[in-house]
């Protein structure tokens, strides 16, 4: 072998090749390297083109070459058409700089098939710090590479799918929001139209009773309109502030009618009910307040009415209490149970599971409503 011709004293491993070469009897470390399942080679950078000077059996098994086909050749015969240039450049740089390198590189066997090689290169120096050899180990990591590629591909596929789905959902949400605004807009306009129709009809009616009837109907529809307007103006369409509604209602009824002789007393804690209760509660409050304004106070000779009306709202432990009082003519003057307004109040109270009570306040009337509300709804709403 030509290794013998060029042998130099420092070539310690060539000595072991000569002495008990194949069995490695003279050197247990050499024997271990020859027999290990880990593919290993040694190259000699002091010779022309840094050729392989040792290759163990594992290397030959992995690459499919015979020993005489690899000894004396530079390792680049393992490279092939799909080997990355960058990995080759890294190896070249490590050899030139005499440094360690760990790199995954696509290599080719003798039969032309490729495999992923987890290559580790390390320079071996003598006492003076001069590089004598390069030691290299190889590991076939094709399986790992395949799963890496698969994971990367899967990840990209999932990311793409998630992105597409997100875009779909965002578009759907935007369509829903637009639709909600559109529907809200139409509901508001339609409520306004209903009010207008009633008003226009009412203008053409001469019968005073009929006019009053239409007026009461308009008030109820306006109460519904106010509920809708307030709900959709607020940030949270699932909750409704009954106190704000009552405040608006009383100012709406008193300021416009010019009944400044009627003095309102409001004691309103902020009370929030879930949206589904907004309409019945608002209708009930509307009914009680308009009723009091219409029937409780006797007209003076000059046609005006005077007195005071009170609305009180509070919520002690999970209950909503509403109290509407006046100092007018009292219950005797109130309309009877048979009236539609009264039936409406009672039906709404039943729907809300509310207790309702008319008390003679002498002077005047006090209506007290108590219904379950409070913390249990906060839980349902969140």
């Amino acid at each position, binding site marked *: 072998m030509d290794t013998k011709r060029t042998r130099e004293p420092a070539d310690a491993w060539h000595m072991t090749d000569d002495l008990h070469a194949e069995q490695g009897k003279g050197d247990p470390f050499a024997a271990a390297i020859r027999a290990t399942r880990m593919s290993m080679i040694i190259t000699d950078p002091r010779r022309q083109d840094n050729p392989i000077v040792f290759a163990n059996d594992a290397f030959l098994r992995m690459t499919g070459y015979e020993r005489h086909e690899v000894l004396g050749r530079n390792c680049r015969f393992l490279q092939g058409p799909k080997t990355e240039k960058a990995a080759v450049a890294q190896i070249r740089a490590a050899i030139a700089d005499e440094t360690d390198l760990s790199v995954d590189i696509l290599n080719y066997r003798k039969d032309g098939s490729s495999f992923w090689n987890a290559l580790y290169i390390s320079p071996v120096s003598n006492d003076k710090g001069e590089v004598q050899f390069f030691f290299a180990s190889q590991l076939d990591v094709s399986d790992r590479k395949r799963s890496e590629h698969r994971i990367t591909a899967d990840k990209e596929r999932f990311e793409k799918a998630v992105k597409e789905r997100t875009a779909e959902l965002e578009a759907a949400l935007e369509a829903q929001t637009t639709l909600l*605004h559109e529907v*809200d*807009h139409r509901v*508001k*306009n339609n*409520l*306004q*139209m209903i*009010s*207008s*129709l009633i*008003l*226009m009809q009412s*203008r053409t009616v001469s019968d005073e009773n009929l006019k009053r009837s239409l007026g009461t109907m*308009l008030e109820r529809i*306006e109460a519904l*309109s*106010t509920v*809708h*307007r307030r709900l959709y*103006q607020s940030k949270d369409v699932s909750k409704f502030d009954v106190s704000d509604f009552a*405040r*608006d209602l009383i*100012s*709406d*009824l008193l*300021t*416009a*009618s010019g009944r400044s002789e009627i003095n309102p007393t409001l004691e309103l804690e902020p009370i929030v009910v879930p949206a589904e209760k907004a309409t019945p509660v608002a209708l009930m409050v509307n009914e009680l307040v308009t009723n009091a304004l219409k029937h409780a106070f006797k007209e003076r000779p000059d046609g005006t009415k005077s007195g005071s009306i009170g609305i009180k709202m509070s919520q002690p432990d999970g209950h909503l209490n509403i109290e509407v009082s006046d100092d007018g003519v009292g219950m005797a003057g109130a309309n009877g149970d048979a009236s539609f307004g009264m039936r409406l109040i009672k039906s709404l109270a039943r729907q809300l599971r509310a207790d309702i009570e008319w008390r003679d306040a002498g002077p005047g009337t006090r209506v007290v409503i108590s219904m379950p509300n409070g913390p249990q709804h906060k839980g349902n709403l969140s």
Partner: protein
Amino acid sequence: MTDSLKILIVEDEALLAMELESLVEDAGHSVVGWATSLAEARAMIDSTRADIAFVDIHLTDGPTGIDVAEYIDGRKNAMVVFMTANPKRIPDHFAGAIGVIAKPYTTNGVTSALRYLQEGVRRPPPTSERPAGFTLSPAFETVWAPGR
């Protein structure tokens, strides 16, 4: 008693415009015109004298109510009050408008708003309380309702 107001109605729904006209007249004011689009509104603003224009955002030619308000703001010959079911579409600066009456409004709400506007236009600032259904623009809030 202060002078009554001349009102221009800019509204694409005939029914609402008709009823609003009746409400305005019931309150002792007069309606000088009814426009349903930006072009009609411009022509009327140029040819009539109105104190207040009630302007819906959505007109027959689209959401051009803001443009109507800007046109009026540029001419300075009337003041604008928006009347819309879509108050969220009003820009932050209100295009120079006094405020907004959100639909659905109540008859009492409009009557009170007219009285409040009459005071505000004829002898500012208004002395009666701001009606519940009426929202002032930030600019008018500082002038008509400082510290409230």
